[in-house]
């Protein structure tokens, strides 16, 4: 034991356990369970294993509301990632993981290691990673004139720029395409940005790995980068609020090494193929502690580790440091008997360190040796099985009650809707995200069939005719105004994006980013949102196969908007059914599916007009949604849909613009009794814009009528080509009228330029 480390009595008297994330009661419980006071290493182990990040002690009772089973689910929550059958012996593996706090402290490395971490979750299941997506939240990119908001804005731009660069830096180097994501800018994230990453992988059924350590005597093998003093106590750190003292915890910065990550993927996949290992888990949050205790607990055995054998990058590391380090790019294997040398040989080929550090024992304890002494011995049922679970109190916040009662529309219809529209499409919220995704290699591995920019990304499954559509979504403004409805919408929208791409949604993964659950108002948000999500999953028949909980997202006591994000993956059985949101032919007819309602609460338009949100979010009828999705999928599969685009933020007007291309514009005439700005910008749910050949309109109309899906013919696609002779566009190219009165008449290329480069301009702008 390191002489500067406190002993068990000092930990008790000095309440050192608090720094490790244990409350007084939790510490008391540990002492009771052990029948003695734990030493520093042991206290540290309890601290991380009982953190929200590892134990879900605040969220478990809620998470049990999610449906987790389905005929195609091969692995639900509990392992590194969920696994869903996609037929012909293949399965898809996917999960979301948050890296919010590390990214707030060191945005580049925080985001990079977030990507590294989710990829290890994927390949620890035996899958080859095929795609990553991300979901990001930051403060506003520009400000009013006060000095304090100026310094916030410059910090926000720094965070945003470096988070994107970090995701790019890791994903590009490791050679997994970053194919999509979403981002929102709002004041509530100024002090507490969110960085969630979603990983997707493919395996053949027989390649599926698990994390159960079974078989007394088997060798435990450490594989990957050496252990340094990185990120010590990262998991507990992730479960605390950020405050001014966060800086003092700075040794917690881990640095990602995507080069090692790449070698590690290849080495692991080859080791699995060789059949030399029995089980595997990645070392993510809480590093060696979490992997060793969870693996042995799942298998009902014990584990003895000799910490001197653990490869170490720093000198004189203590047992505490070795166990708590969150150095990246590490895995833990349980070898099949006699196959150790095969594992070493494969790892050597890939230049990846691999060494036996211990073995499985009968007694169900974690026993750690260091310098020939036993430095920790903990019954696994205390570390893994005895975590206190909290039933928190829930209370609807007064602020929400007040906001809901306000009217969503308190301004006159603007006279010049053209300029309102121009302003709206340049808000970072609605502007093109190309500034972000062009920094990501979204094509590597040459399976990307639909690149970022469309509703969902589509990645082909090599060696088959199948493809997977994937999307990540979550509108926290809706969740803030009404967490239950917002939760439903998050699930419905992610699924709708996938359906628009021609895929049948298989399952979802979720990331729950909330404030401090010990506050009743926050717990109410969590409970409501989860209930809404669960309800949507039940009706849309989408099991939740995994996810992540990130609580305590607060700065100086101010919580973020409740932010659940939903990652959906869908299957395209035959990749000819792959559909994008982009118009394909001039003369195609535009069909709007679904009802447009007087709904502006929480909309991007309301936010722009008021600088704030109020009223109720759009309503969502899950049965209507389900019928829409099913019917849409049917007609897409029958091959008569040329483009499909779901309506979300920015409403009909934005969807029309983002379906246009350099070559195709629109002429639209709408009929409605609603205010023109509502017609254009309402974010009513369960709506989709289609473009179809004129000869198929009637057929679709009939199908929609039969299913009771409202279907309106609203205009057509026009060629936007510049005629070479005159140098001017043949048509205005982007024309919308309402009840025969023009409301937007613009030149398509200028609109597209405004929209396309808005974020880049914002980032280059001086403050």
């Amino acid at each position, binding site marked *: 034991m390191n002489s500067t480390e406190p002993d068990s009595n000092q930990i008790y008297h000095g309440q050192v356990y608090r720094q490790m994330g244990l409350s007084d009661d939790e510490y008391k419980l540990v002492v009771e369970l052990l029948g003695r006071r734990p030493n520093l290493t042991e206290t540290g182990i309890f601290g991380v294993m009982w953190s929200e990040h590892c134990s879900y002690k605040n969220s478990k009772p809620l998470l049990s509301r999610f449906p987790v089973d389905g005929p195609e689910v091969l692995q639900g929550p509990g392992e590194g990632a969920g696994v869903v059958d996609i037929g012909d012996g293949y399965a898809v593996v996917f999960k979301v993981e948050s890296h919010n706090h590390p990214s707030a402290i060191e945005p580049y490395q925080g985001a990079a290691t977030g990507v590294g971490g989710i990829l290890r979750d994927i390949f620890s299941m035996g899958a080859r990673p095929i795609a990553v997506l991300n979901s990001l939240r930051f403060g506003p990119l520009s400000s009013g004139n006060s000095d304090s908001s100026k310094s916030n804005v410059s910090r926000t731009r720094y965070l945003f720029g470096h988070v994107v660069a970090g995701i790019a830096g890791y994903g590009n180097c490791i050679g997994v395409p970053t194919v999509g994501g979403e981002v929102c800018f709002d004041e509530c994230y100024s002090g507490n940005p969110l960085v969630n990453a979603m990983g997707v992988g493919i395996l053949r059924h027989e390649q599926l790995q698990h994390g159960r350590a079974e078989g007394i005597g088997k060798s435990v093998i450490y594989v990957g980068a050496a252990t340094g003093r990185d990120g010590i106590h990262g998991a507990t750190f992730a479960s605390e609020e950020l405050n001014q003292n966060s800086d003092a915890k700075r040794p917690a910065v881990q640095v990602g090494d995507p080069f090692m990550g790449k070698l590690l993927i290849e080495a692991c996949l080859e080791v699995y193929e060789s059949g030399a290992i029995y089980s595997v888990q990645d070392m993510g949050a809480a590093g060696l502690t979490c992997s060793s205790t969870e693996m042995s607990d799942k298998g009902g055995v014990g584990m003895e580790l000799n910490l001197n054998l653990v490869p170490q990058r720093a000198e004189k590391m203590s047992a505490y440091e070795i166990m708590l380090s969150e150095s990246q790019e590490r895995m833990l294997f349980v070898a099949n008997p006699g196959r150790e040398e095969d594992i070493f040989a494969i790892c050597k080929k890939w230049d990846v360190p691999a060494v036996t550090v211990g073995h499985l024992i009968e007694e169900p304890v974690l026993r750690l040796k260091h310098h020939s002494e036993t430095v920790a011995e903990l019954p696994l049922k205390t570390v893994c099985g005895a975590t206190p679970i909290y039933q928190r109190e829930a209370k609807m916040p007064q602020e929400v009650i007040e906001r809901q009662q306000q009217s969503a529309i308190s301004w006159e219809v603007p006279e010049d809707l053209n300029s309102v529209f121009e302003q709206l499409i340049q808000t970072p919220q609605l502007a093109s995200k190309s500034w972000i995704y*062009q920094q990501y290699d979204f094509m*590597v591995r*040459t399976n990307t069939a639909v690149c970022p920019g469309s509703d969902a990304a589509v990645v082909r499954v090599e060696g088959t005719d199948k493809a997977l559509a994937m999307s990540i979504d979550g509108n926290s403004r809706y969740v803030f105004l009404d967490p239950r409805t917002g939760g439903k919408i998050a699930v419905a929208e992610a699924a709708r994006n996938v359906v628009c791409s021609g895929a049948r949604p298989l399952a979802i993964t979720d990331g729950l980013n909330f404030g401090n659950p010990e506050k009743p108002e926050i717990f109410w948000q969590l409970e409501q949102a989860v209930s809404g999500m669960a309800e949507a999953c039940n009706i849309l028949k989408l099991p939740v196969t995994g996810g992540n909980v990130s609580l305590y997202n607060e700065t100086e006591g101010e919580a973020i908007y409740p932010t659940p994000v939903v990652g959906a993956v869908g299957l395209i059985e035959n990749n000819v059914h792959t559909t994008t949101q982009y118009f394909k032919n001039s003369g195609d007819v535009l069909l709007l599916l679904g009802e447009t309602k007087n709904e502006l609460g929480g909309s991007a338009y309301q936010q722009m007009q008021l600088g704030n949100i109020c009223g109720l979010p759009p309503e969502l009828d899950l049965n209507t949604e389900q019928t829409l999705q099913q019917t849409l999928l049917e007609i897409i599969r029958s091959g008569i849909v040329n483009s499909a685009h779901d309506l979300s933020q920015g409403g009909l007007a934005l969807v029309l613009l983002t379906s246009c291309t350099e070559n195709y514009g629109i002429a639209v005439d709408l009929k409605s009794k609603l205010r023109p700005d509502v017609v254009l910008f309402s974010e009513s749910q369960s709506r989709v814009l289609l473009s179809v050949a004129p000869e198929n309109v009637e057929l679709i109309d009939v199908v929609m009528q039969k299913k009771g899906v409202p279907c309106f013919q609203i205009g057509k696609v026009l060629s936007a080509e510049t005629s070479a002779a005159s140098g001017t566009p043949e048509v205005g190219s982007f024309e919308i009228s309402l009840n025969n009165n023009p409301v937007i008449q613009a030149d398509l290329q200028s609109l597209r330029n405004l929209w396309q480069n808005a974020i880049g301009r914002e980032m280059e702008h001086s403050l």
Partner: protein
Amino acid sequence: MRCAVLVFPGSNCDHDLYKAANSVEGMEAEYIWYTHDTLEGFDAVLVPGGFSYGDALRAGALAARAPVHKALQCAAASGIRILGICNGFQILTECGLLPGALHRNSGLRFVCDSVSLEVSNTETCFTTGYAGKTDLPIQLPIAHGEGNYTCDPETLQKLEENGQIVFRYSGSNPNGSLADIAGITNETGNVLGMMPHPERAMSAWMGSADGRIIFESLRQ
């Protein structure tokens, strides 16, 4: 035609290049590990893109000194066709098989996009297939952070005079490269380095099939 696809630690477009070459009739690609000391028996060598050695120090620097580089030099000297794509181009400049250097994009950011290219020389063994092509410029994807080609004025003049500049960016230049250079050959014309990725443009569903022509030309 037998092609070697070199694999360095960290290479990540090796698989894509292998798939692309094998999809071309009459071409057979094999992976060759960076520790190999010979490339005998191969008719062409393909050096893939993608972060060999994690791009440590300078992109391509470490791979250019890996054991296989001697065999690569021999292959080049004996006139065997060598195609380096993206990181492969960086490796070829780093080991001196191509003149100049590729440094950080002028925009300082990694760029993944599809670009328009002018084929400035359709007489190299890599580009004959473009000679009759009518829908020009061609479209190929790019994905790089260090594609900013630079060399001294004398070298540039030589490149121009000898027709060694094979591809130029014809829309906006994505990385600030000198003279809009996107790809060059060596003096004898058997070594081509290019930043765009032809292996990512092999069929219409990928967005473009213009890359296939390079492989088909190479095969002849």
